[in-house]
């Protein structure tokens, strides 16, 4: 089965005063049509930069230093900038944490959606508006005809995010990259959007990469999970397996840090130390200074263990029960 999105060895670097910092380090993953991949990590893990790198949206002082991004088998990075631009929006689309990154505040929702359609396709304005209306229906917006006439500021935060998702859907892309799209929303609104996104993937066959810091959201939404730490994917696999039996000590620590799994009032198992600064990483395994299982061998680069869809980057992975 061919993957909608296949990322191989993607590496992104940023130039700083003290030298290069590798924000995304040799990252590989793939998503099949209709599946949702959760890209989980804490701040500075490189999860968002990975999302932007997939679309080629990295500006100086950053640069994509290597790797391939295959969209339905076609290497995005081998294309001309113009061809890449055409690819974005049509076959890969992005949804941001702040929907106002997508929405133009001075245009009516319908006008900007129609414009987005006509950038890539030669259709009449009324046909474009019909497409826009259809997209709003897909994301569960009530009374879509009226919303088309509204300006973005007249919509609530949740509604704006739905419109942003609808815009991403306009060209029926095969891949959507969603960067923390529900982080700024309230739980009740987040619940509504998660339900729509799950239905969307199932019904339209769009492959979705869901970038998030929230393990609970990802575990209930995604089919597969990639856990990122200091720019690398340290563990990946089917969501249920990764959550039930994590193999990387970091993943385990992350899961155990969630308060709802513990008796109220008791102390939580915690990962010591702070999230790493990319400019001051130790040699070898970046999690080494915080890891309870670390030994001298961890000062060398950790091996990629595991098979098939279940991988872990660790010298001393936890045994699966």
């Amino acid at each position, binding site marked *: 089965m061919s993957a909608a999105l296949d990322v191989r060895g993607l590496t992104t670097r940023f130039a700083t005063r003290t030298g290069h910092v590798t924000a995304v380090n040799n990252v590989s993953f793939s998503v099949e049509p209709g599946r949702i991949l959760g890209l989980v990590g804490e701040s500075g893990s490189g999860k968002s930069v990975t999302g932007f790198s997939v679309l080629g949206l990295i500006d100086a002082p950053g640069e994509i230093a290597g790797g391939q991004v295959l969209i339905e088998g076609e290497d995005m990075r081998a294309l001309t900038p113009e061809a890449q631009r055409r690819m974005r929006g049509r076959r890969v689309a992005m949804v941001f944490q702040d929907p106002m990154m997508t929405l133009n505040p001075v245009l009516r929702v319908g006008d900007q959606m129609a414009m987005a359609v006509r950038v890539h396709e030669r259709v009449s304005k009324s046909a474009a508006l019909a497409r826009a209306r259809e997209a709003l229906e897909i994301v569960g917006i009530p009374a879509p005809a009226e919303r088309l006439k509204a300006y973005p500021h007249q919509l609530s935060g949740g509604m704006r995010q739905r419109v942003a998702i609808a815009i991403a859907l306009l060209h029926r892309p095969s891949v959507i990259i969603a960067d923390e799209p529900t982080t700024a929303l309230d739980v009740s609104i987040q619940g509504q959007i998660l339900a729509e996104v799950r239905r969307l993937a199932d019904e339209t066959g769009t492959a979705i990469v869901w970038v998030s810091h929230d393990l609970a959201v990802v575990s209930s939404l995604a089919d597969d999970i990639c856990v990122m730490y200091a720019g690398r994917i340290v563990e990946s696999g089917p969501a249920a397996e990764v959550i039930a039996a994590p193999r990387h*000590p970091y993943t*385990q620590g992350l899961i155990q840090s969630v308060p709802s799994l513990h008796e109220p009032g008791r*102390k*939580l198992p*915690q990962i*010591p130390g*702070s999230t790493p*600064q990319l400019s001051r990483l130790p040699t070898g395994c970046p999690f080494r*200074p915080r890891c309870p299982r670390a030994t001298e061998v961890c000062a060398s680069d950790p091996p990629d263990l595991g098979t098939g869809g279940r991988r872990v980057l660790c010298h001393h992975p936890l045994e699966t029960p």
Partner: protein
Amino acid sequence: MSDTIAADSETLAVPSAAPRETRAVRLRNFWADYRRSWVAVASLIVIALLIAASFGAPLLAPQDPYDMAALDWMDAFLRPGTVGSGGYMHLLGTDNAGRDMLSAIFYGLRTSFVIGLTAGVLALSIGIVVGLAAAYFRGRTEAVLMRVVDLQLSMPAILLALVMVAMLGQGVAQIIFALVVAQYAYFARTTHGAATVERGKDYIEAARSTPLPTHRVLLRHLLPNVMPPLIVVATVQIASAIALEATLSFLGVGLPLTEPSLGSLISNGFKYIHTDRYWLSIYPGLFLMITVVAINLVGDQVRTILDPRNAR
């Protein structure tokens, strides 16, 4: 469940923070950023040379232009490069009174710098008080203070300065006063803008809810955080104070020629601009331009460094 992560570890094991950053390190980083533009470095060197020349004028200048006794009518209108009766070369020539232009320019620069810096610092202080008070107390205080500032900003600074000088008369103190009145509004508006943003931040709320006395919140918390944009405005305003003073003197309402400033030198030479005695006003004008442009270039670079969008 494995035992890898102890639930009740005694130590919280927080790794040490980044190495302590001293003032020297911060200064070094600032300089590293500043150095990136050679134009800005050159401007800084030019300003340093001009300041050295102006404040060292009594030592460097071949002649004291204030000393009427040292002037000789025979030396009037000497071309640049000629040797006069004093036995030294007039590099930039002499004026209609036989004054050595280079000396006059050095002394003139000193007057310009003194006036520009004094007026700038005074205007900055008054502007900070007005802007901070308006931003912190809001309500009626803000409405009254900022409307006055707006009113003043709607008038050209030169007009305001002219009116002030007309009322107060000539002299260094009067000019400074006029410049302060004309310029404090720029500082007040910048302070008000920056302070309004900072006031909304949690650290001000935290200070107020401790509770700390108002003057402490204003001076120890709000003020240090509105300084960066003010430093940028201050450099630009000092340059414009120098230009403003020159304008007033050129118009003949500033300083008399016996107390030469760049403006009065230009004004004096302007009478001869249509003859071939170009050097009387061209050279002081050139120095004025170089001074103002160099200060502005330095201000620009400081703005670039302090802009958080350029942070690395």
